[in-house]
């Protein structure tokens, strides 16, 4: 069934046509019966009329026709009914004495009184024989069947005519009505079509017809189940990472104890410690990536002093710069943005960690906060090797690390840092650009927060 509308329209029209056909058929048969009775009575009446109006019997056979005679009874005004009635009169000797509208040589039918059917002159006739006892004669009236039928058919056809005209009109109206009846379905379809991929909230329709209610309800139920399973899926990664924190803590403390217990520095134990640290880092990054996923994160936007937050994050994560003897500078002044504190702090941590990781010892990192025409700009500039232009798109992908697995600086990392940053940038409807710094080598990450808050 390609279209419910077409199906319903065609079916309804077919049913209307069939019912009309059946009732017409019955009407036709009824009309035929009525016509039979009518014409029979006519034959009888004519016979009586003739017996009353034709008192004298001529000596010779009279052949009278409608045409060219003075005897010209108007049987009907319509031409078809001319020459339709035939009658004969026979005397007591059963000799034909009067012929009207025919030139038959003998009696058309037997002289038994009553109705009869005969074949004559290539037609089927209905006859009536009347025994005129008073005048000792027989009067036969006859009429052709086909003329009867023509009459009856005309009656039926004329009653059918409005129906035949009416069917296309009915079809058109049914088409419109079915369309109107199906409108809630197309509204529901539209509602579903316009939904965004991530929007799994229930569909709302005002005035849902009873028939659609169950469809709407089951669609909504499906959406709810889908949403729940999506959320379970999302939560799983977060929960799993969360549950990993205690075992990782155990490993960290145990490896610390082990390293202290070993008299001489064991390379294996050292590498074990590195591995544990890396795993711990990965778990934290996966947690952050999940947490900051724009369709999951419940951001709490507030007015933040970005410069102040930079200070806090820099002081909280300065150890990595000390380890590599790197220099860090924070430029700028109090600048307000509308942001989520935790998310922006996570963003800064990741940018700083990247800058430190991919910059050589004694390198220099500059963090700048400034108000530009386009919005509030946060810049993190390092003088490391930078990222080749062709890699800049891909570094935002999860688990992608510039330079492949064999990382230039052999830095531990999991390739999630910039993906997390991208999440947070999206969350704030900000933009991120990776460029070359104004002078020398390195990477300049610029994040632009639009709609800065007026500093009062």
């Amino acid at each position, binding site marked *: 069934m390609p279209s419910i509308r077409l199906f319903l329209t065609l079916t309804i029209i077919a049913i209307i046509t069939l019912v009309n056909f059946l009732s017409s058929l019955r009407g036709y048969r009824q009309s035929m019966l009525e016509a039979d009775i009518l014409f029979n009575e006519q034959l009888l009446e004519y016979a009586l009329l003739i017996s009353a109006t034709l008192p004298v019997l001529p000596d010779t056979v009279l052949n009278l026709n409608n045409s060219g005679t003075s005897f010209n009874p108007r049987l009907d005004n319509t031409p078809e009914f001319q020459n339709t009635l035939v009658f004969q009169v026979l005397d007591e000797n059963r000799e034909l004495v009067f012929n009207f509208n025919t030139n038959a040589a003998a009696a058309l039918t037997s002289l038994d009184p009553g109705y009869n059917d005969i074949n004559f002159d290539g037609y089927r006739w209905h006859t009536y024989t009347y025994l005129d006892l008073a005048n000792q004669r027989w009067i036969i009236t006859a009429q052709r069947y086909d003329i009867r039928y023509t009459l009856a058919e005309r009656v039926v056809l004329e009653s059918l005519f409005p129906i035949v005209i009416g069917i296309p009109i009915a079809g058109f109206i049914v088409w419109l009505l079915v369309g109107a009846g199906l409108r809630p379905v197309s509204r529901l379809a539209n509602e579903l079509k316009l939904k965004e991929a991530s929007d799994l909230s229930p569909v709302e329709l005002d005035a849902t017809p009873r028939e659609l209610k169950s469809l709407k309800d089951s669609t909504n139920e499906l959406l709810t189940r889908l949403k729940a399973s999506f959320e379970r899926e999302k939560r799983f990664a977060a929960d799993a990472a969360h549950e990993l924190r*205690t075992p990782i*803590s155990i490993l960290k*403390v145990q490896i*610390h104890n082990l390293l202290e217990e070993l008299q001489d520095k064991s390379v294996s134990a050292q590498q074990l410690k590195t591995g544990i640290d890396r795993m711990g880092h990965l778990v934290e990054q996966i947690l952050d990536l999940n947490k900051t996923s724009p369709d999951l994160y419940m951001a709490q936007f507030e007015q933040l002093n970005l410069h*102040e937050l930079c200070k806090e994050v820099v*002081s909280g994560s*300065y150890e990595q710069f*000390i380890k590599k003897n790197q220099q*860090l500078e924070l430029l700028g002044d109090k600048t307000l943005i509308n942001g989520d504190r935790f998310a922006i702090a996570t963003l800064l941590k990741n940018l700083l960690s990247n800058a430190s990781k991919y910059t050589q010892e004694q390198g220099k990192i500059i963090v700048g906060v400034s108000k530009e025409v386009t919005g509030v700009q946060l810049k993190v500039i390092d003088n490391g090797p930078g990222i080749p232009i062709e890699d800049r798109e891909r570094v935002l992908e999860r688990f992608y690390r510039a330079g492949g697995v064999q990382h230039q600086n052999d830095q531990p990392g999991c390739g999630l840092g910039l993906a997390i940053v991208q999440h947070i940038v999206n969350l704030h409807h900000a933009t991120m650009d990776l460029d070359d710094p104004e002078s020398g080598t390195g990477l300049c990450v610029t994040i632009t927060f639009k709609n800065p808050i007026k500093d009062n």
Partner: protein
Amino acid sequence: MQVLLVEDDNLLADAVVVALKRHNFAINRVSNGKDAMLVIDTTPPDIIILDLGLPDIDGIDLLHKFRARDFSNPVLILTARDSIEDKVKGLDAGADDYLPKPFDIDELLARLRAMERRLSKTPSATISLGNVTLNTSAHQLAVEGSEVELARREYMLLKALMESGNKIQTRESLENKLYSWGEEISSNAVEVHIHHLRKKLPAGFIQTVRGVGYIIKVPKSATSQ
């Protein structure tokens, strides 16, 4: 220094006990809230390390119970929950510090030492970084063994910086430590005190991180004791 560890995970608890013992802490461990309350009532410890995910009671509720029993010694929360709300809830309930899992044992030790110093129960409450030693109970500074006189605010400043070795102290956080609420401060008070301090300390001991604050780096070979 008596430390009570309230932690239900045996492996983690055992590891922490071993590590703390090695660093000269007297440590007891219980694995549920009921036992913790028993210890509080009988032999109150100096410091409590509290895991929030306990089998019989939520750690925050347990902390409320501690405080209701007039237990006023420092409590350090150790937890896998790391959201800001959780942190605020813990500190509001009366925790003194908050360490998210997975933690570095060095970090735990450093925080315990800071708490220890705050209690000032040990006679040798000293912080040594390189050849600079600060005695926090006698408020004395020694550079290369010889004593150096410090003004009160200079001492407070140096203590704040030395206690958080390898961590930047922002100018704002130093101001907050030096001056109580409502006290009038000149905009460059911290800079002035730092300037005076630097004259009394080895060159490069206090470093400036431009735009952020000040830092004392821990010499690579040494750990603060």
